[in-house]
């Protein structure tokens, strides 16, 4: 068991997914790093869940009637796929952060969940197609008022955010990437891109799904000039021009870096703040163009890069609330089927400051250390400690058993190291390890080791291990991915 490789593999899975259980790490390590990357990059080739079975027992599960139910559906899916198709869920979470669309305005749960499904299915493919899918996405159209974008009376909301937040960004290297005129012309090109029914009222059979509709007579077909090109552009032409811009390559590369490699300053400052690792950004930009805007290819380069694999990139991100919640749930191996407690558990994301499907604004959430305040930290600590301290969870039971089977005698430090490894190769600062070891020593009644033999011994051993896991889950170090 090559320790270094396992730690690297755990790092890969924390970033491309929500962390891995020790059994999953065994399997990935057997595959080897590059093959593991390849498998992760193709979630569609991995077994899915039996959705028909779920639908049979939970008839309404896709027809969420309120924000909380929709958030629960989102968290539930991330959790059930975290083992078999981690990146499918992680990329959906990624695009949800970039293309942040919220139920506060959309008020149509099914339509927004369909958008998340689109991210699952197309989120790793061609960026041009994804952007086009987004432009035709009914939730996005409603969220950014493109249904009010008419020939002769344009509404610029979508046109602006498409450029500012979804593709090019305001500027790079201190310069501006587009003009106000570009915004206006882009908006004109998307006139007539609307939805066929924005009625949000509940009907006898639930809400009627919204669908994209193109209304040619409401489309402004006159000449437009956008980013220096002139023509009778329609929305697709605008997207074609956008995706060829170096600014788009930079913007998407930085987003991928910020989400998968290391916390960057908040997005609005990117115009004036250069990337933390320009070298890797350049590699990603090159891959963006040479792969014809393929996100999967960019991630392949990213995950295989020396920088990603280096020690420097490990634990260089503060976990988002969704990562805390789903990552912890994944360790537990619970919720193969939904059950009552999933609801309150999923709401943990909200309590920690990430109201999934309901971002504070179209700019999404501020990330990194801005996830943390005293209230949200207490929520994190208590959530994790409560979950991992529950021996009745199959995943917790398995971790305890794995540790007990290692030896009949364990000293505090090997208990700690064992727990750290089982919980996904968490790294604890030496000082904190000492503090924790000192307490375990006290718990063990000053004995430096315990012998797992009699039922009492085993019970006391289990208790010590659970306590250790709770305390590890409460640390600052556990907040990093």
């Amino acid at each position, binding site marked *: 068991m090559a320790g270094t490789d396992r730690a690297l593999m755990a790092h890969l899975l924390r970033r491309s997914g929500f962390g891995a259980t020790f059994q999953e790490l065994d399997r990935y390590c057997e595959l080897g790093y590059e093959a593991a990357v390849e498998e992760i990059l193709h979630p569609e080739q991995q077994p899915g869940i039996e959705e028909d079975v779920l639908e049979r027992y939970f008839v309404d599960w896709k027809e969420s009637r309120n924000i909380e139910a929709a958030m629960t559906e989102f968290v539930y899916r991330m959790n059930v796929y975290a083992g078999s198709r981690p990146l499918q869920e992680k990329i959906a979470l990624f695009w949800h952060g970039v293309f942040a669309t*919220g139920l*506060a*305005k959309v008020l149509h749960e099914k339509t927004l969940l369909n958008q998340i499904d689109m991210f699952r299915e197309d989120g790793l493919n061609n960026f041009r197609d994804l952007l086009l899918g987004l432009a035709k996405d009914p939730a996005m159209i409603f969220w950014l008022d493109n249904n009010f974008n008419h020939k002769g009376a344009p509404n610029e909301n979508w046109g602006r955010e498409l450029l500012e937040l979804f593709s090019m960004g305001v500027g790079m290297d201190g310069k501006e990437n587009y003009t106000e005129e570009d915004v206006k012309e882009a908006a004109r090109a998307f006139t007539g891109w609307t939805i066929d029914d924005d009625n*949000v*009222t*509940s009907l006898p059979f639930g809400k009627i799904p919204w669908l994209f509709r193109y209304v040619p007579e409401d489309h402004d077909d006159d000449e437009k000039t956008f980013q220096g090109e002139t023509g009778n552009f329609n929305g697709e032409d605008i997207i074609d021009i956008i995706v060829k811009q170096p600014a788009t390559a930079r913007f998407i590369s930085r987003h991928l870096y910020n989400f998968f490699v290391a*916390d960057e300053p*908040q997005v*609005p400052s990117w115009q004036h703040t250069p990337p933390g690792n320009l070298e890797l950004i350049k590699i990603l930009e090159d891959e963006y163009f040479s792969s014809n805007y393929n996100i999967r290819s960019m991630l392949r380069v990213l995950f295989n890069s020396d920088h990603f694999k280096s020690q420097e990139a490990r634990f260089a991100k*503060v976990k988002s609330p969704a990562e805390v919640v789903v990552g912890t749930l994944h360790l537990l191996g619970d919720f193969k089927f939904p059950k009552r407690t999933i609801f309150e558990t999923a709401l943990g994301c*909200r*309590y*920690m*400051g990430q109201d999934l499907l*309901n*971002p*504070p*604004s179209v*700019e999404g959430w*501020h990330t*990194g*250390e*801005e996830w*943390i*305040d*005293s*209230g*949200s*930290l*207490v*929520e994190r*600590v*208590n959530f994790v*400690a*409560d979950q991992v*301290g529950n021996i009745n969870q199959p995943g917790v039971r398995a971790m305890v058993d794995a540790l007990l089977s290692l030896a009949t005698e364990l000293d505090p430090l090997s208990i700690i190291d064992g727990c750290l490894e089982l919980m996904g190769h968490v790294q604890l*600062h030496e*000082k*904190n390890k000492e*503090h*924790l070891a000192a*307490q375990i020593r*006290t718990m063990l009644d000053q004995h430096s080791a315990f012998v797992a033999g009699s039922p009492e011994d085993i019970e006391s051993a289990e208790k010590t291990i659970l*306590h250790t896991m*709770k*305390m590890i889950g*409460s*640390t*600052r170090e556990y*907040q*990093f991915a």
Partner: protein
Amino acid sequence: MTSINKDPILVVVQLTGGNDYMNTVIPYENPLYYDNRTTVGIAQEDVLPIGQGLAFNPALSGIKNLYDQGKVALINGIGYPTPNRSHFRSMDIWHTCEPEKVGDEGWLGRAIRDLDPKAENVLTGVNFGRGLPRAMALTGVPVASVAVLETYGVLTGITPESERTQALDLFSRMYSPIAGTGHVMDYLGSTGLDALKGADILKTVPDLYQSSVEYNDSVIGRNLKGIAKVLTAKLGTRIFYTQQPGYDTHANQAPTHKALLESLSLAINDFYEDLREHNTSENVLIYLFTEFGRRVRDNGSGTDHGAGGLAMAIGDPVKGGIYSEYPSLAVGDLEEGDLKHNFDFRGAYGTVAEKWLGLDATTIVGGKFEQLDFV
């Protein structure tokens, strides 16, 4: 009288979802009100008149009672330019005072910083509810966020208490500064220790509290009771925050809105009585707001998101009365079918910050705005 008060306390109550202004303070003599409110309108004979053609919703008898004693200021037509009808965005604007761009600093966060610049008291700001409202968020400003006072704390799932004490001891060791681990670790450390310190102090609160007031059982009632417990324990908290959710009344508004206002009115009344019993009512100003009012015309079942709304200041320090004008309901005066705001909310915040908390309003609300005389 109140100006000599040394430690004025502010209690902010957020009515989440967009409270229907027109059905809270009703222009019951205006035929346009009844033309537009064919479904959810409140009948003239039911309203509680307060003069100037305005009346309280009958569910607000408790607040009306305080109004009659001169302890309620109504701030009419409050809002901001180019209203945003998204709950989140609009709430964000009210929280950050940034209508143009997305801000990340809360106005109360700035007030807490100015009240306690060295962050000496981790309980200068206390929120009752889960998750910190952006209004109180400011990097480096500790705020305790309490869901339920009796169970609030770090590692509350660890039992028995002796084990938890040990766990908390370890927690504080593991959150203590370690040189050279970087500023995010430092920030996490100080945040964790602040949370711990706040929880330690708050733990003592429930045992200290005694009152003859029996609060009406509701979300807002429980939260205001929690605030009363902390407030009367005199821990130096200057700003409290809580919310009453459920005001997004697109459908079936009549019974929902009535129930919400009733529990709000009872809770405010109970809270005020509790403060009086503890001889501290002169010290406390209650400020109520919502992210927007609702459409002038109802939709046949409820009301959709609108603009210009209502804020209220309540308490002994308040000079009661009707402030600012009730916006016109005439079709030509509406903005996209909504009441046009005629008083900038930053002026009301400024009034509270400057005239009540004694702070410089300009830095807190991000500019100079017309203030009112309700304090």
